């Protein structure tokens, strides 16, 4: 059984059908890359899975549960994490505090009420080193550069440790070296997590993708391995534009 099974997913925004009859499966330990031209409905698909947007029809099953009608925080508790296209971290909290918020295995009221803030956890230390923010832990997240903010949000998702992580354009605005490093981090996440990654950077996709789904105008255009997609005529004409 797949970790995530999306069946006949549809959403209407007024007259616009942003996602139209989409089927999507992701299994444990898999990295699925979601490609498509601007406005294809990639971010909206992630929104539907994590509950930011309510679907019009269809079904989303995650880890054996139908989740299409439950509030977003409950979906998160089942194990779905989300990185947004516009980096969104808590700018008025320190890097360290951002990570503590993200570590949300115990997110109930009584659990947080009974937890007085401790200073160093080896886990957070390790994650900070992984993304190279270990010297910035006491800084306000609002003082980070764009690239560092991207890293912080990625670090937060690692700290959150969800079974399925939805990444919306994680390498946007990164240099080639930074993109490389992100690819390596994703590789290391693959063992224990499933990922859906929306990306435009093809060299990054080649490095990390187990499978690719291409969307256009809300529909699935093609699906397959990197080579299959790169040789797909429909994709070439619709997406690559030649």
């Amino acid at each position, binding site marked *: 059984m797949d970790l995530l099974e999306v069946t006949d997913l549809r959403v209407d925004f007024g007259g616009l059908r942003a996602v139209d009859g989409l089927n999507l499966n992701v299994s444990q330990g898999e990295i699925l890359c979601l490609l498509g031209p601007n406005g294809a409905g990639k971010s909206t698909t992630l929104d539907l899975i994590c509950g930011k947007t309510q679907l019009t029809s269809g079904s989303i099953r995650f880890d054996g549960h139908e989740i299409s009608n439950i509030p977003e925080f409950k979906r998160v508790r089942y194990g779905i994490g989300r990185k947004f296209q516009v980096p969104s971290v808590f700018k008025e909290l320190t890097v360290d505090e951002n990570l503590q*918020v993200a570590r949300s295995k115990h997110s109930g009221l009584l*659990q947080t009420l009974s937890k007085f803030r401790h200073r160093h956890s080896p886990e957070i230390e390790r994650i900070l080193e992984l993304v190279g923010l270990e010297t910035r832990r006491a800084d306000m997240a609002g003082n980070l550069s764009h690239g560092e903010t991207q890293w912080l949000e990625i670090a937060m998702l690692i700290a959150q440790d969800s079974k399925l992580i939805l990444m919306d354009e994680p390498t946007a605005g990164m240099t080639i070296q930074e993109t490389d490093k992100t690819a390596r981090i994703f590789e290391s996440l693959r063992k224990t997590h499933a990922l859906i990654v929306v990306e435009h950077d093809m060299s990054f996709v080649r490095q990390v993708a187990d499978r690719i789904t291409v969307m256009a105008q809300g529909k699935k255009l093609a699906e397959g391995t990197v080579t299959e997609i790169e040789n797909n005529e429909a994709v070439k004409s619709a997406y690559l534009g030649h």
Partner: protein
Amino acid sequence: MTKKLKYDLVAYALFAAVIFLAVPAYLNFEGYELNTFARYLSLGIVSLALALSWGTAGILNLGQAATFGMGSYAMAMHLKLKSSQGLPDFMSWNNVEELPWFWVPFHSLSFTLLAGLLIPASIGGIIAIFMFRARISGVFVAVITLAFLVAFQLLVIEQQGYTGGQNGLTGLAPLTLLGWTVDIYSLSFYYLIAACLFVAIMIGIYLVHSKFGLILRAIREDADRTRFFGYNVASYETAAFCISAALAGWSGMLYTLVLEFASPTYMSVSFSLAIVIWCAVGGRESIIAAAIGAIVVNLLEVRLSDVFVEGWNLILGVTFVLIVMFMPRGLHGVVAGANDWIARRKDSRVSNAKHSNLKSRPEIKGGQ
């Protein structure tokens, strides 16, 4: 221990030294003078209660005076029953012939103390659940809580036979606590109120520095993002609102003790706005600063309103506008800013030294 917690604990100790030692010494341990000061201390609690919901969680509750009033009336009902043989006097004037059922349990002090905390918390909780489930936030919360305050005050004034109406509850008996009859002009009474304030501050500091407080700050900044980390934002906001309401109720109970009466003016819009001003002047991001804000503004009010009898409200209003414009983080912001500035100067001196080291190295290399 985090740096912020260290600052808070130092501030706590200093503030405690001032309230427990310096102030009584300055006022010559004189009960009458200290009673006035005890009034400010009791108001410190409602101000820090607002700091908890507004400063930490971003919930601007303009109805704080309503929950304050509930606590204040709970205490007054108990003391009124103690002072009356049978039916309280105002009831018979209003042709109420039997003690209403909801007055009966206030014969018990334990019930009264619990009710003074739990009634505001639960009524606040009901409002909060409706608001926060519907994801109402920001200025709409302010409007709804303000509307509730106005309606609640009207209800209390209208139901004269049960509440004493416009006159409030007067002619109260002194409180008897574990066999000790409280004399409000005694030094021990002052210490009782001061102890309550410091327990309340401790609770506030604990909450702010717990993970719960961290999540509230995250919600204040971006409720949606917090949801996607698995936190039930509505229940966090409701909890903050309820705790704040209970603290306000506590403050109200003490206020009734100090003044020996309860009045519907405690539930007025102007009183509620005054709480916002104290909190803003002190600094809504800090529990201690908010309490100090209440004390300072009230102290000034008493001193200055003698001088500018009618103009005081105007001065208060103008001060508030100036503070919002030029010191949005209140007195606390000024102190914290100065602290940061000193720390940064130290840092830059250290890093300057490092820089000059770095610079000198390539020069040496160049020379070789």
